[in-house]
């Protein structure tokens, strides 16, 4: 019997970062922080960049850094089967799926690499901003804007990684 159990999966396009039973998941959508426990109402939402914390019975909290994504909470018969041991197709369970384009376990963050990435992104940004005054044809403007957005995103990712590893250590 595994009624009222919570199963959590955190997946990226390249791998499954976490899949299993948990007591709760703490995350944040664009409308505020969110803690999901078993029997949570059905929900579909986005996940803002930040750390998702998973509480697993008898284990230290698992922290996973998400660089933006989506989540779905399903509470139904058999929702978490396959994730929670012993949960059958008929047990009413809750499944949380978090999809992220880029995500990593907080313990896997390479601080040195993040620092280097941050420095590189800052240089790139300064460089791009100093050029932005120039006018060009539509295509080059568009490319410049895309480069700028790329550099800003890279900087945001690096800062998020550094912030997360600072909290942990």
């Amino acid at each position, binding site marked *: 019997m595994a009624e009222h159990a919570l199963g959590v*999966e955190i*997946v*990226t*396009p*390249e*791998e*499954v970062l976490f*899949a299993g039973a948990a007591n709760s998941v703490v995350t944040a*959508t*664009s*409308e*505020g922080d*969110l803690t999901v426990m078993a029997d949570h*109402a*059905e*929900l*579909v*939402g*986005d996940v803002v960049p930040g750390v998702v914390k998973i509480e697993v019975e008898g284990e230290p909290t698992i922290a996973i850094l998400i660089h933006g*994504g*989506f989540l*779905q909470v*399903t509470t*139904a*018969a058999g929702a978490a089967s396959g994730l929670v041991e012993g949960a059958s197709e008929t047990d009413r369970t809750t499944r949380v*799926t978090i*999809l992220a*384009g*880029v995500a990593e376990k907080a313990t896997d963050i390479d601080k040195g690499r993040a620092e280097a990435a941050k420095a590189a992104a800052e240089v790139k940004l300064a460089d791009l901003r100093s050029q932005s005054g120039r006018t060009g044809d539509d295509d080059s403007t*568009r490319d410049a804007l*895309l480069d700028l957005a790329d550099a800003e995103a890279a900087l945001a990712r690096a800062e998020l990684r550094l912030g997360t590893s600072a909290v942990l250590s």
Partner: protein
Amino acid sequence: MAGGQERVLRRRIKSVQATRKITKAMELIAASQIARAQSRIAKNRPYRDGMARIIIEAAKGDPNAAKKMLGTPEKVDVAVIVVIVGDRGLSGAYNSSALRATERLVIELKSQGTEALIIAVGKKAGPYFRFRGQDVHQTFLGFADRPEFADAQEVAREAAAPFLSGEAQQVLLVSTRFISAATQKVETRQLLPLVDPRGSTEEDEDAKSELVGYTEFEPEAEQLLEDLAPKALESEIFTALLEGSASFHTSQQRAMAAATENADDLSQTLSRIMNRARQDAITTEIMEIVGGAEALRQD
């Protein structure tokens, strides 16, 4: 001169065997890549499935917005076609079947008054279309063998740009689906506007409808659908790239296995011909000697 023929044959056999070594090596390399490509498809599946489920939920949450954002556009002036092939050849029909399907699609679109904008992934696409006088808007190289998600994001961005600016009304994808190790099929699908994934999972909805009471949305379903669209596009393209790479390696393995077998047959046939030629040469030589001796004795 009979001995000359033998030498020619010997050289050909040597060349066939050298080629066989190459095809055999390629076959083994391709075979080792298939397993990895397949495991990457398997690892990608939870993400793709999760994405489909979320889109279904969001579409159910706001049917009006869904109608606006999903489905087939009525009039298409310009369609973006993303075609995925390999960076290398020697892979049987893998490249050419996807390219031919694209060409047919372009012709079909043209007959409906739709202009096609081709975005090609893989080195083999450029020359094919250039030879046929078909413009290629953009080509991506270098990652068809081993696609990373960042590559898919880049392709997705380029494919979505004309759609978002209103220049194109539809984005189509021509790629090879990896159905199983034995079956791969070229398929054309619509990427944008998003296709309602319910089309293929009808029974899933029936099973759920009685249980679903009320689903919350954060943010609103309409906003969510809008945010989901680019992510879904990336996911679809990434899946297609992974399946393309698996299909490529499978085709290559098959093509190279056939080539190796052919080389074996060929070298066997050639050695038979060579042996006969050698025997003929010896026989002729003996006949000449015997004939010469006979002639001398009678003198």
